[in-house]
């Protein structure tokens, strides 16, 4: 990997000119980012990067997966992650690394050693590989954030609420996918136990489409609730969904369905021996 003899001259140059080089690099990147990162921050990041980079000079960056690159990989991972959170674009993140190239080229302009050219080529390849790594880590971090957010959203959009003593309701809204339905249904069953509720109303007025899998999850939940000693009522089935259910040949069997959430609530209350009566208003 590292051809010590050949890389020597470049390594030596990089080592002796470290301060001025990092300084110029920081200036260049600070200009690029137009003040969105302070020079102090950049300075400390780049110094760290520079320190882990030096022992790798001489490599052409084709083997960034090898153990020798462990340290710089974890640095770039952390660096890219921080950049994602701070709202920088992937190009800004990678070009910060690429910017070092121009500074190093400037430094070697007046060199006469013919070997230095070859060494620079390799160094350029190395920085390219490292820059690309930031892309990879950037994308990974981004995916993690999206996953976290969609989980949070799931929690927010699927509340299980107690609407009466012994009656829970889950208003489902939007497009139901299999994963989401499963999460909601598990939460609903947990809540039945926690609140000691014998009735649960699953209201699907706000649901635009169901597929076979989702319908299966709904059915399984109803059966599971029954095993636990509770009853589920499905309310608010839209005409289109009723058609889908019939077309898909899904057997809703003996599941209690009601036109609206209000009807379902009235039914649940009646089962519990509560009657809702209208009093004359004077």
């Amino acid at each position, binding site marked *: 990997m590292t051809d010590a003899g050949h890389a020597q001259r470049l390594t030596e140059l990089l080592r002796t000119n470290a301060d001025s080089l990092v300084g110029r690099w920081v200036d260049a990147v600070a200009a690029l980012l137009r003040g969105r990162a302070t020079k102090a921050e950049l300075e400390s990041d780049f110094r760290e990067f520079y320190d882990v980079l030096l022992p790798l000079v001489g490599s052409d960056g084709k083997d960034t997966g090898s153990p020798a690159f462990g340290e710089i990989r974890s640095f770039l991972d952390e660096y890219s992650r921080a950049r994602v959170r701070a709202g920088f674009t992937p190009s800004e993140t990678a070009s910060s690394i690429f910017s070092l190239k121009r500074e190093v080229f400037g430094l070697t302009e007046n060199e006469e050693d013919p070997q230095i050219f070859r060494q620079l080529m390799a160094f350029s390849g190395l920085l390219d590989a490292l820059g690309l790594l930031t892309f990879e880590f950037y994308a990974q971090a981004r995916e993690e954030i999206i996953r976290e957010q969609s989980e949070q959203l799931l929690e927010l959009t699927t509340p299980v609420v107690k609407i009466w003593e012994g009656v829970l309701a889950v208003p489902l809204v939007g497009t139901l996918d299999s994963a989401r339905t499963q999460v909601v249904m598990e939460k609903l069953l947990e809540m039945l136990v926690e609140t000691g509720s014998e009735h649960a109303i699953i209201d699907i007025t706000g649901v635009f489409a169901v597929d076979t899998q989702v319908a299966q999850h709904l059915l399984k939940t109803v059966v*599971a609730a029954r095993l*636990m*000693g509770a009853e589920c009522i499905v309310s608010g089935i839209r005409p289109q969904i009723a058609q889908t259910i019939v077309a898909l040949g899904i057997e809703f069997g003996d599941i209690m369905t009601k036109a609206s959430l209000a009807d379902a609530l009235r039914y649940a209350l009646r089962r519990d021996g509560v009657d809702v009566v209208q009093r004359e208003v004077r």
Partner: protein
Amino acid sequence: MERVPILKIGGVLLVSIQIDLQDQSVLALQEDLAEKISSTGAHGVVIDISAVEIVDSFIGRMFATIASISRLFDADTVVVGMRPAVAITLVELGLTLGGVRTALDLERGMKILGQLGRGRTT
């Protein structure tokens, strides 16, 4: 092999399963219960499984068997306190315990047996 104790409260037999059931214990419980229902003339059986972490097909079948046995002695069976994860698993397994009554907790189970008992002519 551990045996599951059977308690008698009024006209109801209470079975509270607190151990990880092995098949022999399941079979022993079925026998013990049949004997106890016949000797006490109980009108109801409550099986509390709130402490049970898994119900496989063997244990699931026990509930149905106990319900059938008690019916022969004119007694009702209620299974109470099934955990959500257990219920979801049973459904996935394809076991729906047709014919076995269930309730959220012991109190409600006793209430159901009381209501059913009142409906009796004896």
